[in-house]
């Protein structure tokens, strides 16, 4: 089974039925899989804070939401995470491509990578880092944890997890 399919299977098994995405090359397979599943309403957003607003509304409407985005989005969404998701105590699994780690070909991505874990720690956001494919075995438990504690939770997925960038 592909890792993208396994990830989306875990979302579906945990009743996540509303997913917003902002694209990333590493996440393309997962986004395709989200789009293909009839159990999931897929709503692409133009910016990640907008996506978190959509997720907040969907949660209050009785759906379990999730957001799929790049780690650069942490810089965009600090205010939204603090004043919406955390202030109103809402759950939000954040599947994040951890750009700027080992095997990264684009130097600028490293500039946000070096801040990513520090920012998440400063925000007191539980953070998990998938480096090897077997790390994804914990996703089911992470999703259960997120909806148990009503917090945003970060799942960082680096290039090694996704098998590198190929010939790029």
């Amino acid at each position, binding site marked *: 089974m592909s890792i993208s399919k396994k990830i989306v299977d875990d979302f579906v098994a945990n009743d996540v039925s*509303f997913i917003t995405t902002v694209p990333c090359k590493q996440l393309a397979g997962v986004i395709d899989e989200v789009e293909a599943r009839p159990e999931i*309403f897929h*709503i*692409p*957003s*133009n*910016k990640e*804070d*907008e*996506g*978190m*607003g*959509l*997720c*907040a*509304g*969907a*949660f*209050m*409407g*009785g*759906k379990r*939401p999730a957001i799929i985005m790049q780690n650069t989005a942490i810089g965009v969404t600090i*205010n*939204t995470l*603090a*004043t*919406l998701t955390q*202030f*109103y*105590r*809402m759950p939000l699994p954040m599947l994040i491509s951890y750009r700027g780690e080992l095997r990264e070909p684009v130097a600028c991505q490293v500039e946000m990578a070096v801040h990513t874990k520090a920012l998440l720690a400063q925000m007191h956001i539980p953070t998990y880092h998938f480096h090897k494919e077997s790390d994804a075995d914990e996703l089911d438990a992470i999703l259960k944890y997120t909806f148990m504690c009503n917090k945003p939770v970060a799942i960082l997925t680096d290039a090694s997890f996704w098998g590198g960038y190929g010939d790029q």
Partner: protein
Amino acid sequence: MIRSEILREIAPILNPHLVVCNIGLPSQELHMIDDNPRNFYMLGTMGLASSIGLGLALAQPKTVISIDGDGSVLTNLGTLPTIANNVADNYILLIIDNGSYGSTGDQPTYAGKKTKLEAVAAACGCENVVTCQAEDTGKTLQAAIDSKKMTIIVAKCESGNIKLPVITKDPVVIRDRFMTAVAD
């Protein structure tokens, strides 16, 4: 008419429906005029009232009205293409356009100058965009609710504020009673 006068006039129309209300004075005014569990007050996060309302409308069948401002829509302009391309016929976005950032001291917005949000919404692909004068907001809103078609209303009014206290309700209480009303 200023925004608080519009809210006072449309409060009976809003009352039975789910309302997501913009940060700052709009929420404070609605809270003072007609506090009820069907109102979700934004205490922070400028710009996301329309996004929260759309997510809510897409997730459940009750009518949802997001009360937004021209300045807040400009802050989150990417919301309009998302709304246009994800039609929820139980969703109304009411933009109270006073051409200024009211909560921060009435600094002018670009919507009060050259930019026409109704034209932006139409260009983004929103199909039912209605512009009205402040005095007609009530009947325009009621017509949009009755149409059962997703509608963007741009209600033009004067800038100006009234003095009133901040909302001190705990955000989790606001959210919890709102979710109870949504599920009721």
